[in-house]
């Protein structure tokens, strides 16, 4: 039996398209200061630090944790960096979780960030493909995602309209989020009419490119009370992968997400996710992925995601709100997003979400992922 681990403090930057006033290290410092203040702690109280970023090519500093360590005052401590593409923040939080659960630390600070204004994003992503067989025709991640969305349209009815409903929902939710930087009311029709970038993906199906950082303090049960009387306890957390090359995958359901959720639900005692969860936060790099997650997470059966979003159930006032924060559509500092989703879910079950608190939220589901849609994880948080 693992030692219980709770999130006892959170902090994120006000994300922006381009932060010219701070370096990567300064950006990280902002999030860390806020998380430590929220947890009523200083760096002296932290045993161990996990830093997570997307690929180093995003911002052209190799092993940037070795530079960032000075900016956050963590010299001398255990510091390690996790990276996992889009899911880096989540993967970092999982490593931090196990540091506390395994008794290596009493308190671990996890900080995740990307400063995407400092690199060529889609060029960097293109270098993830096989240098001999995949890179010649790979253009970022959008072509790959569009091809599989197209396939899911036929097989699962994930229509352009359904994805446009996701985009409009999240974009409109982001308006109230003080940390988001894209805050513009959008209708389903406007999403459908926006410029195709790689059909069926259109401009408003795509999140922004952002600079941002996010930090959480993970604590053992013994130390948690120093920070809060109501931690967000991590009831289960997993991050799984799928090894096959794109051509060999079905990608109708996300196999790694289905495996991760099955494991996490068993640990957390979840038998009916649609009924049991009060709120869900997912990392949707394109709107179509949120539909895929509804089904892979068991919020609805395969083929019914379009109906679920059309029913309004995942709206703010629905019975299972998904991304009340606005998700990636409000801000998308890629490596940080996994931690941002954890923060949004944690503040919900801690009852202290600043602007979009779901009433009486006690049980939250978080999803995150990266790679070429082959790294997927989820976590269950409870009051």
């Amino acid at each position, binding site marked *: *039996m*693992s*030692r219980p681990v709770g999130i006892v403090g959170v902090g994120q930057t006000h994300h922006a398209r381009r932060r010219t006033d701070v*370096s990567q290290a300064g950006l990280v410092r902002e999030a860390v200061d806020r998380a430590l203040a929220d947890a009523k702690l200083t760096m002296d109280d932290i045993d161990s630090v996990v830093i997570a970023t*997307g*690929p*180093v*090519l*995003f911002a*052209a*500093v*190799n*092993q940037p944790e*070795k*530079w960032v*360590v*000075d900016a956050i005052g*963590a*010299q*001398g*401590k*255990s*510091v*390690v*960096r*996790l*990276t*996992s*593409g889009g899911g880096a923040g989540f*993967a970092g939080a*999982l*490593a931090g979780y*196990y*540091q506390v*659960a*395994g*008794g*290596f630390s009493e308190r671990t600070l996890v900080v995740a960030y990307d400063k995407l204004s400092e690199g060529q994003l889609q060029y*960097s*992503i293109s*270098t*993830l*493909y*096989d*240098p001999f067989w995949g890179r010649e025709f790979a253009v970022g991640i959008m072509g790959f995602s569009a091809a599989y969305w197209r396939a899911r349209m036929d097989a699962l009815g994930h229509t352009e309209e359904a994805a446009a409903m996701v985009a409009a929902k999240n974009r409109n939710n982001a308006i109230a989020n003080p940390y988001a930087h894209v805050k513009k009311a959008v209708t389903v029709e406007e999403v459908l009419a926006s410029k195709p970038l790689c059909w069926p993906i259109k401009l408003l199906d795509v999140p922004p490119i952002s600079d941002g950082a996010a930090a959480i303090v993970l604590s053992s049960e013994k130390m948690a009370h120093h920070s809060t009387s109501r931690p967000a306890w991590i009831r289960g957390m*997993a*991050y*799984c*992968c*799928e*090894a*096959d090359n794109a051509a060999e995958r079905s990608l109708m359901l996300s*196999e790694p997400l289905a*495996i*991760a959720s099955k494991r996490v639900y068993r640990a957390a005692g979840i038998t009916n996710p649609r009924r049991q969860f009060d709120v869900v936060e997912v990392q949707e790099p394109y709107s179509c992925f949120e539909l895929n997650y509804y089904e892979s997470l068991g919020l609805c059966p395969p083929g019914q995601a379009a109906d679920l979003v059309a029913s309004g159930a995942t709206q703010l006032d629905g019975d299972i709100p998904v991304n009340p924060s606005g998700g990636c559509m409000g801000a998308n500092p890629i490596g940080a997003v996994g931690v941002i989703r954890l923060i949004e879910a944690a503040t919900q079950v801690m009852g202290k979400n600043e602007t979009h608190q779901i009433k009486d939220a006690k049980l939250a589901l978080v999803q995150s992922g*990266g*790679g*070429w849609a*082959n*790294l997927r994880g989820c976590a269950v948080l409870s009051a």
Partner: protein
Amino acid sequence: MALNRVGVVGTAQTELRPAWSGAQHIDLISSVVTSVFKGTGLSIDDVDFVIDSGSDVLDGRSISNCGFLGALGAHHKEEARVEEDGLWGALYGMNKIRSGGSAIGLIVAYSKPSESNVELYWNAQVEPFYQRPVGFGQRAANGIQAQRYLAASGVTLQDLAELTASRWSAASENGGVAMDGLPDIEAILGSGEDAAPLTKMMFARPVDGAVAILIASEDVTRRVSRNPAFITGAGTSMDTHSYAERDGSGLKSAKNAAAMAYRNAGWTSAQADIAEVSGSSVVGELLAIEALGLAEANRGLAATQDGKTRINLSGGALPADPIMATGLVRLAEAAKRLSQPEAYVTGPRRAIVHGAGGVGMQNNCVFTLEV
């Protein structure tokens, strides 16, 4: 609360070569992932999670773990990329097993610097505004370290060359490291100045290779291993990035890491039979030996000659430094010696394992192993 103990139940390494030109990353990785199960009765199906260490920069590929998941045996399992020496991957794996959440983990680290520009790999780590423009990097840091060390210790260049030669000789005897004959003292001293006073051969030699370690809970370990080595302590610490602000007389973060590991283990360096130590140069190795408590400050050389603890019987990092995998190779070498005492004259029971990362060994990790 009693935490689960973690055992090392299998190790595998490719040969460490200046260039594995006939093999891709996935070939090196799948080779060790296949052979690590030999003699354990376990298979990849028994593995709960895979943790891998490698560098996107050396690989020339973003999220390079993504392309290697099949070779890693990670399909449908939990996988994590620790972008630091594989010894930190082992630390993560240890935490996962100690938490009780998993029983068997595969830790893999690999490197193919022959396909990359190692100088750039180091220079790109340096703070980009003030240090990078003046060309500060791994060579400069090691040169300064060495100048200070020679001035403070009275150790001579001849001593450094002799120690380097003895490491190559040990690696040759141990096997597994490709080399064109053994370099003698003259060859080492005459290999060209790389960062005064260090010559080229006084730096750790980048090599290609992969290493895998299979770790397991105590229960599983006792069922599958005859004489298993257990991880009884682990510690890690990162020094300040600013080289000018670091303590010039020693590796403070290695001291911190060692203190943490020894506290877990309940014993100190004096009781270690063997130690496997990393070092980015021959002076880096001496500094690490001293930081681990195997010698007083500036007295590391004596510990390499007639210390009670036998240091780097494998040859250490000088003849073979598969960047990102070097510390995990040290763990594999130490675990082998503890688990197969009949194969070695010393019959050791306690080992210290050290890994390092960063310019001038900014980050350090220490494990204690016992049988």
